[in-house]
């Protein structure tokens, strides 16, 4: 897609010494990593390891963090329209009165700007994306009538409609049927082969070597980040899933209970009532 001119030009995501805290308790410590463009990347780690937190922090959705995030060697606000985020399926209320097309059209909102309504061309993009995920027959269907797998496909279509270069997906395979999982991974492969970077929070260790070119191993801190062949091995997995860093979490709890100040406290950017 772009020719390599210097080192940073080929980097899609760079995290520098990123520490993320919830309620003053650090849940991710000092993460440093760089991801090259065009890879299909899996984020792996046990429950509570901070996998979702990592991508929320990148998208500016968690309140407290120190260190910095660079996307395509820019700040998030400069390249927001090149980044797409797919939240966990359960994070929204699927009883919401909206149709499949309504949800996919949301993918165009970022490009539309304030007050403007979606145009015909936006609708065409949305329909095209629905076709890609195999949901063209459900365009007018109400989202409350969809199965789990179909809901996930709709979320994926919404992300595709953003026509971004970098995609963050929070557990896209959670609770979906085998056919959907296969369809989704096919699509993700296709996207990354076209030069897009796709970063996926993943649970199932069985499928890692089959699915991902690149792996991030996470457990409160970065254990490893590199090509699957190099880092997806027994030793590093043992380190990720094995022994708990009790000292680290004890210090974290202490910070929470002592109301200890964080190094840098950014203003809250989340929904005030959440």
């Amino acid at each position, binding site marked *: 897609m772009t020719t390599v001119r210097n080192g940073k030009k080929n980097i899609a995501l760079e995290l520098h010494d990123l520490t993320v805290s919830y309620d003053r308790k650090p849940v991710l410590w000092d993460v440093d990593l760089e991801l090259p463009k065009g890879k299909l990347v899996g984020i792996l780690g046990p429950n509570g390891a901070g996998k979702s937190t990592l991508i929320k922090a990148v998208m500016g959705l968690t309140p407290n963090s120190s260190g910095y995030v660079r996307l395509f060697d820019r700040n998030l606000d400069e390249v927001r329209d090149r980044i797409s985020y797919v939240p966990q399926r359960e994070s929204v209320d699927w009883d919401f009165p909206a149709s499949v097309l309504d949800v996919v059209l949301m993918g165009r*909102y*970022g490009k539309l700007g304030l007050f403007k309504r979606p145009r015909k061309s936006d609708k065409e993009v949305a329909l095209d994306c629905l076709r890609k995920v195999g949901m063209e027959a459900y365009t007018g269907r109400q989202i409350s009538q969809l199965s789990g797998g179909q809901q996930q496909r709709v979320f994926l279509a919404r992300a595709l409609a953003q026509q971004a270069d970098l995609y963050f997906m929070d557990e896209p395979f959670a609770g979906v049927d085998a056919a959907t999982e296969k369809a989704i991974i096919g699509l993700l492969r296709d996207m990354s082969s076209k030069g897009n970077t796709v970063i996926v929070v993943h649970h199932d260790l069985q499928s890692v070597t089959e699915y991902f070119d690149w792996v991030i191993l996470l457990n409160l801190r970065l254990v490893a980040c590199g090509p699957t062949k190099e880092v997806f091995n027994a030793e590093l997995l043992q380190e990720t899933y094995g022994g708990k860093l009790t000292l680290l979490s004890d210090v974290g709890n202490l910070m929470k209970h002592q109301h200890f100040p964080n190094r840098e406290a950014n203003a809250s950017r*989340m*929904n*005030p009532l959440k």
Partner: protein
Amino acid sequence: MEALQIILAGSLVAITCGLLGCYLILRKMAMVGDAISHAVLPGIVIAFLISGSRDSVIMLLGAGLIGIFTTFLIEFFHKRGRLQTDASIGVTFTWLFAIGVILISAYAGKVDLDQDCVLYGEIAYVPIDLWITKSGTILGPRVLYIASGVLVIILVFIVLGYKELFLTTFDPAYAAAIGISTTLWHYLLMGAVSITTVASFESVGAILVVALLIAPPATAYLLTEDLKKMMILSTLLGVLISITGYYLAAAFDGPIAGGMATMAGVFFALAFVFTTTAPRLKRSIKTEKG
């Protein structure tokens, strides 16, 4: 003619409340709407005392601010004080409402407001309360102008911000990720709810406005799965509630606002019974045939 004016005023208020109520119930903020509608009372009384009249613009602005202040206070106690949300809502609005009632009692002679007005408004006086210009021209009932003005403001707000309201309501995390400020739209919506409750206050009172904020959208929500249709249905229900509420009150010599709230409940009950039993009915018919 009088009946028509009252029904018209009731409809305008019910429509405005219903449109905003759709967003409140979908955001699971029905009780925040309830809190705001109570909390604007001291704002209204103070605006009365300062301006000495029902000067609507000042009152709307003042109340809009108080409404946003209420929302802010609820969040402040929740976030900084770690008070659970339901208690934070309950403590804040009862306090402000109590102050409002005390002010009304204390300045009973100076303020053209009484407890009855707080409880169920004075929609019956709509035809008498005329807007007369300085030159003496009678322009018609004052409340009708205010209610239509506020309805227009709310309509403009919803039409212009439709996309943003829709997205921040459905999926706030995604909205924030693509750069839409959830906080901004949250406070804009709360401001809109405050203005609406103040504008409705004279007609239906502080407490029954909650029935109009919640019942029509909840009824519509049962009947449709499309946000636009939900808002249209809420609007129709608002008109229906106004008409039937008026005649219910006329029949039993009760307060009109109370009649409207009662009818709002009746329509919800009908929709609820219909939507919860109809599928089962269909199923049982099918099984009989099969």
